[in-house]
């Protein structure tokens, strides 16, 4: 058996029943998912207005907000904020990967560390991620042990998973403390308050957002929701459909750190970052949003559930789609951001993904549409 087969069937056997259990035990979650879809559609129908509102709200909180069209613009802004020869810690972000932020910062002689365990392994192995929630699921624990032995030492292929985690924890702790800048994505952004929400289990994102003096969040415009109340729903739905409910941590950030302890005057900064930057990214999304069928892809909340129900992903997952976008959602996103229709050609229209998607995206129909566009040389959103 190939190591991919072993790793993915272990992950499927763990994840699939867990999601059903979570949904069974918390029947309010599908209701929340429905509300989330409605709120996301409201934003997509009025995208420009909500982008403007978000930018204004972030500024009201004493933060900085930017709107970028493509990877180059995003890299320039991040490069200006970070500068050279700094230590940067990153919380897993597909958009940062999409925009090549880590590689760009490294080219400016910064020391950049992925702090999500899976993403850290990916960085160490210099490989693309294979799943949005679990970027290193293509690695068996034996392989992880071997990799860590080579890169940071302290464990080997026979070590226990707990020991592997401890070794990375110790190694990264020092980086967190010394870091000048923390970079994260955002699971949801509230237009009315300019707050971002981040959901995680490891605690690395908390560290990344709070320990360094500067926090940069990078997110696609599709992450905007009308209100903070809507945005709060997203972490619950995302973690539930990822089978990781309740999430260990949900982080809410509205601008740089603040205190109101002296005469109830809110002043910034306090203990956390003194600077907060939100970078809102187009990179093909705005064009996709104008297309009735492709717009559906923008509803994706990256729970990764569709991957585990997809026969094609199970057969070839780690090479299907343009990194970091793999699996059924990745076949849609490869087209939205890279104009690449080839991954869509691999959709066998089993329909499992549409059955399980919390956002009720009819993924096979979107992919069928992309296939037709690809066949007729109609390129995607990116730079088109």
């Amino acid at each position, binding site marked *: 058996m190939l190591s991919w087969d072993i790793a993915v069937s272990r992950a499927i056997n763990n994840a699939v029943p867990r999601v059903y259990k979570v949904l069974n035990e918390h029947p309010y979650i599908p209701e929340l998912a429905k509300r989330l879809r409605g709120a996301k559609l409201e934003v997509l129908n009025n995208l420009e207005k909500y982008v403007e509102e978000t930018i204004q709200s972030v500024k009201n909180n004493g933060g900085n907000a930017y709107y970028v069209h493509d990877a180059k613009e995003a890299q320039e802004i991040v490069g200006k904020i970070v500068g050279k020869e700094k230590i940067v810690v990153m919380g897993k972000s597909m958009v940062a990967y999409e925009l090549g932020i880590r590689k760009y910062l490294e080219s400016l002689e910064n020391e950049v560390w992925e702090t999500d365990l899976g993403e850290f392994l990916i960085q160490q192995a210099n490989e693309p991620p294979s799943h949005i929630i679990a970027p290193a699921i293509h690695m068996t624990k034996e392989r992880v042990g071997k990799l860590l032995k080579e890169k940071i030492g302290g464990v080997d292929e026979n070590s226990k998973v707990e020991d592997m985690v401890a070794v990375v924890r110790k190694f990264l702790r020092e980086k967190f403390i010394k870091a000048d800048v923390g970079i994260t994505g955002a699971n949801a952004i509230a237009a009315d308050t300019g707050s971002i929400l981040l959901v995680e289990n490891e605690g690395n994102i908390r560290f990344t957002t709070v320990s360094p003096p500067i926090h940069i969040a990078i997110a696609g415009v599709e992450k905007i929701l009308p209100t903070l109340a809507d945005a709060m729903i997203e972490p619950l739905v995302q973690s539930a459909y990822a089978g990781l409910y309740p999430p260990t941590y949900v982080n809410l950030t509205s601008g740089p750190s603040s205190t109101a302890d002296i005469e109830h005057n809110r002043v910034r900064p306090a203990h956390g970052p003194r600077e907060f930057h939100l970078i809102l990214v187009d990179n093909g999304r705005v064009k996709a949003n104008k297309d009735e069928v492709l717009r559906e892809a923008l509803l994706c909340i990256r729970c990764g559930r569709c991957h585990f*129900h997809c026969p094609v992903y199970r057969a070839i997952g780690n090479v299907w789609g343009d990194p970091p976008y793999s699996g059924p959602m990745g076949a849609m996103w490869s087209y939205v951001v890279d104009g690449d229709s080839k991954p869509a050609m691999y959709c066998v229209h089993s*329909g499992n993904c549409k059955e399980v998607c919390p956002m009720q995206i009819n993924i096979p129909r979107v992919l069928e549409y992309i296939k037709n566009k690809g066949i007729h040389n109609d390129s995607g959103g990116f730079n088109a």
Partner: protein
Amino acid sequence: MPFPVDKRVCSSWAKDLPRGGDTIIYTSCMYQIEPSVGTFLKLLPSISSLKGLMPLARVVKPSKTQLERAYRILNNIVIALKKSGINTGYLYEDEPYSGAILLEMGFLDEFGEYARKVVKLFKEKGVKRIITVDPHTHNALTRYKEFVNHDIDVVNYLELVNYTKEVKGEFTIHDSCLYSRFLGLREKYRELLRKSGIKLIEDEKITGKDTSSCCGGPLGPVDLKVSEKIAENRAKDLEKLNKKLLVVCPICYVTLLPHFSGEIKDISEVIF
């Protein structure tokens, strides 16, 4: 068909069905030709161009046994329909192909164009009601309306038959993705199987609506290796439940056959 096929291969199964009529059974030659499609694909590195199939179609033909099986299945369906009070005509060698492969490979523009031609032909023949017998044809036909306005009724035989033989035995089932998750027929054939007395061995993780994976067949024209890998995974899962397997689609049958170590039967071979 997407490649030239001897029309007699497609139509010889029917002997005494009336030619044409306002209600017809529509095979789209799927059961008849599907056993040889795998051979076509194996001979090709890739059919990025469907035209690549043309010369090969003349040399590859289903074997006598394969054809006999396909003909038996189609006749069983006709018998079941008759016993349920439904008589149909048939277009014999005038029967067109549905265009399913165009749709499934994403040639939407071409599919729409093709659908217009097929609808025109059905109208010329005075067809008012079409009874489909496989999921791919049924799916293609139900999607014609997105491209061409028509009032022909498209119905699948599973929605019409209420007759079954009495059968004893335990089987597991591999669902057709299209019937199960797109066309709402999943319960229809389960109902028929229950009626026949068959005991289905199911497991929510393997044969559940969200979890029952594809056989991989429709991916064959894009990437045969991946298609076979999916079939292998699927067969391995199904074998855990039972060595006797039922399918409801000719593509599932030929795709799973080389990978499943037990016996595979189309439900129409067993319950009618």
